[in-house]
C-alpha cells in the first residue's frame, strides 16, 4: 500500500509536467488544426534556457533561491515564448492555407532544427544539475521500513502547475484574448469578420503554449536534475498522447490526459518493467485512438461534405 501511495505521488508529479506540455498541443490543434510536432522540442529548449539562466544567475552571485527560481521561470518563459512565436511565423504561417500535410511536414523539419540546434550549440552530453530544492516530508512510515516520501520539489511542481493552470484558465475564459482564441477555434473567417485579428490570436496561441512548455521544461529540470537535447522527442509524443487521451481541443482534457499518462507510465515502471514504459505509453495512444477517438472530454468531429 505504501509502495502504491509513493508511486501515486510520483505519477501525479510526472503527469503534471506532461499535462503542461499537452496543453500546448491541444490549444494549437484546436485553433489551427495541426499537430505542432516541434512542441516537444520547445519543451526541451525551455529546459535548456532554464538551466543556462540558472547557471548564469548563480555565478553572478545571487543566493536567494526563491528569487533565482522566479527569475529563471520568467526568463525561460519569455525566451521560449519567443521561440514559439518565431517558429509559427517562419514555419507555419506561410503554410496556413496550403495542403493538409504541409504544416505537419514543416513542423517535423522544425523539430529537427530545434533538436540539432541545441545539440550543436550546447553539446550532445547530458547536462546534470545539483539538486536545488532539497528536503521533504515523510508521510507514512511503513512496517518494513518503506517510507512514503513527499519531497519539496514534488510539492513545488504540483503547486506551480496548479498556479499556472489557474492563470491560464483565467486567461482563456475571462480576457479579451481568450475570447478571441475561442472565437478563432470555432470559425476563423467569422471571427475575422467580427474584428478579431486572427493572425495575432494564432501567434498568441503559440506564445502561450510555448510559455507553458517552458514551465514544464523548468519543472523537469528541477525534478530530474538533468536536460539533454533529445528529451523533447519522447516527452512530446507522450504529451501528445495525453492530449489525445483527454480529447484533443479540450483544455481540461489535456491536463486530465497528462495526469493519466503520468500515472500509467509510473505504475507500469513500478509493477511491470521499466524498459517497456515507453512502449506502454505509445500503445495507449494507439488503443485510445481505436476505441475512443474523441478522447475523454473531446467532442466528436463531424465531417461535412
Amino acid at each position: 500500500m505504501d509502495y502504491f501511495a509513493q508511486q501515486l505521488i510520483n505519477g501525479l508529479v510526472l503527469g503534471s509536467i506532461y499535462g503542461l506540455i499537452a496543453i500546448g498541443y491541444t490549444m494549437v490543434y484546436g485553433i489551427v488544426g495541426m499537430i505542432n510536432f516541434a512542441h516537444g522540442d520547445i519543451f526541451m529548449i525551455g529546459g535548456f534556457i532554464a538551466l543556462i539562466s540558472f547557471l548564469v544567475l548563480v555565478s553572478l552571485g545571487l543566493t536567494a533561491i526563491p528569487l533565482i527560481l522566479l527569475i529563471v521561470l520568467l526568463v525561460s518563459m519569455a525566451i521560449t515564448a519567443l521561440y514559439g512565436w518565431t517558429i509559427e511565423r517562419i514555419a507555419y504561417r506561410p503554410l496556413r492555407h496550403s495542403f493538409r500535410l504541409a504544416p505537419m511536414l514543416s513542423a517535423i523539419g522544425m523539430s529537427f532544427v530545434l533538436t540539432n540546434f541545441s545539440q550543436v550549440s550546447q553539446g550532445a552530453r547530458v547536462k546534470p544539475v545539483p539538486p536545488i530544492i532539497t528536503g521533504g516530508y515523510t508521510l507514512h512510515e511503513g512496517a518494513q521500513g518503506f517510507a512514503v516520501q513527499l519531497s519539496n520539489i514534488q510539492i513545488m511542481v504540483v503547486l506551480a502547475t496548479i498556479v499556472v493552470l489557474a492563470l491560464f484558465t483565467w486567461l482563456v475564459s475571462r480576457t479579451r484574448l481568450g475570447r478571441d482564441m475561442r472565437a478563432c477555434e470555432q470559425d476563423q473567417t467569422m471571427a475575422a469578420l467580427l474584428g478579431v485579428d486572427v493572425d495575432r490570436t494564432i501567434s498568441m496561441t503559440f506564445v502561450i503554449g510555448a510559455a507553458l512548455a517552458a514551465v514544464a521544461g523548468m519543472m523537469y529540470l528541477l525534478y530530474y536534475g538533468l536536460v539533454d537535447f533529445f528529451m523533447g522527442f519522447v516527452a512530446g509524443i507522450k504529451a501528445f498522447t495525453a492530449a489525445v487521451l483527454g480529447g484533443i481541443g479540450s483544455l481540461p482534457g489535456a491536463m486530465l490526459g497528462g495526469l493519466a499518462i503520468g500515472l500509467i507510465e509510473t505504475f507500469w515502471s513500478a509493477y511491470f518493467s521499466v524498459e517497456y514504459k515507453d512502449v506502454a505509453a505509445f500503445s495507449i495512444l494507439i488503443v485510445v485512438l481505436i476505441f475512443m477517438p474523441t478522447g475523454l472530454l473531446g467532442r466528436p468531429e463531424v465531417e461535412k461534405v
Partner: protein
Amino acid sequence: MSANSARPSPAAQPSGSAFILKKALISALVALVLFSLMIGVRTEAGPQGGLIYWTRFGDLAALVGAVFGGSIIVELLRQWWGPVDKDSIVPKPVQSAISFAGRWLAPALLVFAFLVPVIFYNQRYILDLSILVLTYVMLGWGLNVVVGLAGLLDLGYVAFYAVGAYSYALLATNFGLSFWVCLPLAGILAAFWGVLLGFPVLRLRGDYLAIVTLAFGEIIRLVIINWQSLTGGPNGVSGIPRPTMFGIPLTPGDDGLAARLGIEFSPTHRLVFLFYLILAMALLTNWVTIRLRRLPIGRAWEALREDEVACRALGINTTTTKLTAFATGAMFGGFAGAFFATRQGFISPESFTFQESALVLAIVVLGGMGSQLGVALAALAMIGGFELFRGFDQYRMLVFGIAMVLLMIWRPRGLIGHRAPTVFLERNQAISSDLVKEGHG
C-alpha cells in the same frame, strides 16, 4: 490558392530602404534574444561533475549579424521576385524544352544507372554511394504507394524496413536460410506487420494517422532494443551472410564466382552485384507500382487520396483499399530492409530511428507525392546532399531540418508537383442547369 485573397496586393506592400531596414532590425533583435542564452553561453559538465560554462559572445554577434544581413537580402529578393505564389508565364520555347527534357529524362537516367558500375568500376566510393541512393529510391517508391497514391501519411515506415532487415538477419544467422529464400519471407513478414498496423488505424485520417504510425515505428524500435534474447538489443545482429549469386558465393574461394568464370577475384564484384541487385529490386518496385496504378485497386487508392467520403459513397471498400496500400508499401520496405541487412552484414536499432522515416518521407514529398521520377530525383538530391555534409556531421540534420521547412514554404507540392489523377474526362461537359437544381442530382 485561397491565401491570395487574404494577402495584400504587391502594390500595397510597403517597400523602400527604411522598411527593409526596420524589418531587418526587428529580425536581428529577435535573433539576439533567441540566441542570447543558447549560443552566447555554452554549458558543459565539468571535471568534478558540476556544470561549468563559458561565454561565446563573438559567435552570438556573428549570428545576429548574419540574421540582419540575411533578412535584408531575403526582403530585397522578395521585392525583386514578386509574390511567391504568382503563376509565372514561361515562354513557349522554354516550355517545350522542359517537356522534351521531361520525356527523355527517365530513360536517360535508367541507361545511366545501368552504366554506373561500368563507368565507375574503380571508384569504390561512388559505387557504395549509388547503392545507398538506390536503396533510398526503393524505399521512396515503396512509401510512395502509401503516401503518394493512397494519401495515408505514414511516419513509421522505417518499422517495416526494420522488420525486413531483422527477418533476414535472424533467419539467416539462426537457421542458415539463404538470401533468396529470406527475401520473399522478409517482404511477407513486413506486409503482415503492415496489415497489423493498418487494422487499428483504419478509422483515422491525416494527422492522427501520422502520429499513430510514428508511435508504431517507435514501438518496433523499442521492442528491438529491449528484446535482447532475440535481437541482441542495442548490440544488434552481426555476421549476417552476404548474398550469393543464386547460390554461387562472391568469395575468393574455389567455388566463388570469380574462380568459376576463370577471372581474377576482386572485392568490387560483390559491389557490382549488390548494385544490380538493388537496381533490379527498385525497378521491380517501380514497375509493380505503375502496373498497380492501372488496376482497380490503384484507381481506388487515388480516389481515396482525393476524397474518402466520396470514395465510400461510390461503393469502394475503404478498408481493403487502405490495408492493401499499407501491405504493399510495407512489403517493399521489407525487401529493402533485407537488402540493407545483407549489404551491411551488421544491423542495430540505431539504423531504424525516426530520422530515417522522416528522410524517406522527405524524399517522397520532395519528389512530388506520386511522381515516380520525382522520387528518384529527390533521393539522388537528398542522399547526395547528405554526402556533401559528410565532413560536418553534426550540422547534417540541422541543415536537413532547415531544408525541409524551406522546401515546404517554397514548394509545398514538391519539386515535380504531380498529383493529377491518372483518369479524367477528356473534355469538359456542360451539364444542363435543370439537372443540378437544388434537391436533384
